[in-house]
């Protein structure tokens, strides 16, 4: 899959720089210390403008997912069907309210960065970050299954 991710938004420079170094970083408020994603300019919890990049474990649980059968973007046509997963990281789960967590969108990929087949995608499955090189200077954080026992009731779309 050839993919161009233009880093035209300065809020994201540190995020993609860390990805090139094999690290997943999340913006952390320098005052209340809470993580937030995507990398916004202010803290949604305390409105502070001071922040740092925090390296996180990259481990989490699939919170929800879809399987794209008909790709909209031309670059993904050869890749379909592919899973898009919403991963809830282990860090800051259930904080500051029980419904909150740090969640990222990614693809669920095999060790060689192919889309995982639908049969292996489930809400509740444990995952970890991996880094897919998509161009000479572009690296995209992705997620793969860890094989750990599920963190919650496993669920797949019936049929």
């Amino acid at each position: 899959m050839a993919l161009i991710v233009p880093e035209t938004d300065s809020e994201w420079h540190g995020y993609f720089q860390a990805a090139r170094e094999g690290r997943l970083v999340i913006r952390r408020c320098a005052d209340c210390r809470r993580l937030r994603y995507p990398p916004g300019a202010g803290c949604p919890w305390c409105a502070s403008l001071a922040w740092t990049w925090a390296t996180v474990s990259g481990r989490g649980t699939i919170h929800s997912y879809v399987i794209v059968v008909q790709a909209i973007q031309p670059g993904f046509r050869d890749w379909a069907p592919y899973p898009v997963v919403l991963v809830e990281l282990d860090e800051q789960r259930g904080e500051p309210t029980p419904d909150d967590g740090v969640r990222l969108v990614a693809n669920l990929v095999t060790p060689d960065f192919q889309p995982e087949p639908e049969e292996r995608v489930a809400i509740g499955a444990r995952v970890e970050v991996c880094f897919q090189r998509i161009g000479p200077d572009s690296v995209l954080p992705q997620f793969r299954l860890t094989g750990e026992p599920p963190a919650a009731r496993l669920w797949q779309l019936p049929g």
Partner: protein
Amino acid sequence: MQHLRARHCIVGIGETEYSRASGRSTRALGVEAVRLAIMDAGLTPRDIDGMLSYHSNDSTPSVAIAADLGIRLNTYADVIGGGSSTEGLVAYAMGLLEVGLCHAVVIFRAMNGYSEFRIGGTGARAATPVRGLELADRPYGMLSAGQRFAPVFMRHMYEYGTTSAQVAHVKAAHSRHAAANPKALVRTPVTVEEVLASRWVVKPLHLLDCCLETDNATALVVTSADRARDGRHPPVRILAAAGRVNRDRPDYFYQGRFTTVAGVHARELVFPAAGIGPEDVDVTGAYDAFTFTAMLQLEAFGFCEQGAGGQYVSSGAIELGGRRPNNTSGGHLCEGYTHGMSMVIENVRQLRGTVDDYCARAAQGVHTYDYRPGGCRQVRDARIAMNMGWATPATGSALILGSHRV
């Protein structure tokens, strides 16, 4: 807001044909719809002094429409927005009337949503630069509304046991409604089984879980209750309007309660203002960008308990002849896609009692109430209607309308 109850009315409605090849500019479409709405109100272009529209860089600005119809404006605004904008702009229009800036406000939406800027994300929309929030999902092949909204439906299935078959009832019901709507683009009734057998677009969504893409323009005229007395039709009273209302955070994926939508906040605004509750509503217009969005809205606004949306939409309640029919025109799933305006227009017709179905004397308010395909779609004695607009799970709006008898 309760002091504003019934102080303003929708007095005119206008819409073009719903098609996939208008062959015309959004300017020409918008001019036609605005002109029809003004005529429907019994007004002339000279009576209009306010104009509001919404767009996604895919339309024509108010000044162009006004110029073509000889309208001189005291104020206008073309806001960026899709679904849920209509109801929000009705609230803005009420404000313009209250402060005395305008006497009569036109709200319009004009779009070539199939032939020019396809709402599904293909064509011109797929070529826009990737920046801002889109860096969080487009690099992963997540772009269209269906791809972006469906994780909420998946999680709703996980938490509450909701099923694809339950929400397929929304399409089945709306398709039967459209079968009594001569203007609907798709008038063939479909069954739940046919929805489930249609091809996958993005699992959990089948093709028939997704709305149409169409070319069209739609318009409303809003004025004060005092001026509305002189209209061509019985005025439809605005009991409450709110929008666009956010859930906890507008970037809904990343924080907060995942399976609720903005309606949980909007309902706290509009029901007290209108002095009614969900049980008082006779007909609903829950936004059906997808089958499941109508379900999530009806649940969030309290037409059923949290988690019971699947049971509600599959119970028969939302069908013509049921307790509270939804989108009697066929909605976005079957009539055409207008980012919500058409559903408000349909509810205005319902409250006037002059729905344009196949009844011979529909325009005089004489209906058979025979809801078989090709027949009637007027709800008997409809007094209160409610629209529930949807932009995303985290952004919505609401509008409660009453007939002249309320």
